[in-house]
């Protein structure tokens, strides 16, 4: 199985390799492939897809998604997790989730963190009853709450309870480092 990892250059597609889409991650997990991909073990951050003896789980993974042509080399989003575990209904339980979205320019648009969520690749949704924290890339807006539903296809999300938004004026968009 081909191993791929995210280039350290933010938002750039690694040269010479395809991408492992979220759908593929789902397939990998659903198929029950042994995929303990601990970055500590491999010493290569974000390595995806190397089978090991741990059955059905992925650790310390990340999954990039890229824009369509002509911006196919620009990352659209990057999903990270400490652990992904396939569920019986075909979805995936992700622990210590972090999602970053990028503009075509490479600027970080948004970062979302949650202790855990259930990702459904078919519906491209993620939901959880846990805490969520969302921060805009420019630092102008921070949203926290309890319980959420994220629709990846149309880039919408709902926070169900105790929504707390903090808004601070910032001078301008902060470009990605």
């Amino acid at each position, binding site marked *: 199985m081909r191993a791929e990892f995210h280039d350290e250059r933010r938002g750039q597609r690694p040269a010479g390799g395809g991408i492992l889409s979220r759908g593929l991650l789902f397939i990998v997990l659903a198929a029950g492939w042994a995929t303990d991909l601990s970055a500590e073990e491999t010493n290569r951050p974000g390595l995806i897809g190397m089978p090991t003896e741990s059955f059905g789980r992925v650790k310390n993974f990340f999954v990039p998604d890229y824009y369509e042509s002509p911006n196919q080399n620009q990352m659209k989003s990057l999903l990270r997790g400490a652990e992904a575990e396939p569920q019986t209904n075909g979805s995936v339980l992700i622990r210590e989730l972090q999602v970053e979205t990028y503009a075509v320019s490479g600027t970080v648009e948004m970062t979302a963190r949650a202790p855990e969520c259930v990702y459904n690749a078919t519906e491209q949704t993620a939901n959880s009853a846990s805490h969520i924290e969302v921060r805009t890339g420019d630092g*102008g807006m921070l949203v926290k709450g309890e319980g959420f539903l994220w629709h990846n296809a149309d880039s919408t999300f709902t926070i169900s309870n*105790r929504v707390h938004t903090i808004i601070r*004026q910032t*001078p301008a968009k902060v470009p990605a480092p």
Partner: protein
Amino acid sequence: MKKFILPILFLAGGIPGWSAEADAAKEASPPVKMESAGLPSTNSAPDAGTEILSKSAYFDLKARTAIYIGDVRVHDPKMELTCEILTVQLSPQGGGKFESGIGETNVVIDFVDEKGQKIHATGGKVIYRYTVTPTATNDVMELMDNPLLHTPEVDWSGGVISFDRINNTVKGDHSRVIIRQPAGTTNGSIFGPAN
């Protein structure tokens, strides 16, 4: 100047010293020009944090829209706002700026103006718009659905009460205006020096 922490900051900084006589009841009134000490310019808001609390919220990142639903409370250094639904349109410029906002159902706004006067406004709906075109900049808030704006000196009620932040004017469309004469004054000129 910063554009705006929150659309409804329209009122922040106060509405002291309307300089013209207030047009009264049941007719669309001409815009009332405010003195320089009136509404702050769009860029005068301090860079302090604004909090929005609600029971739930919906965010559309593509449309850059946020909808806060249920017991919405806005805490800002210059104002307090409560309503049941608050829809804000985020500026494509980012930086915590808004283009427009709509507060709906049981809207209550409290703030203190630059003179330290407490201003209390209520209504069924408040709409804020901030638009920039090659020829004009609009920065307007409209309070409607049985609106009431209460100051120590003037009460506006009914119709649609519009605040133009660029031109520092208040316009009542089918609104009633009641001017109170402060105790101890004899000429009733609470809006400025008597001519």
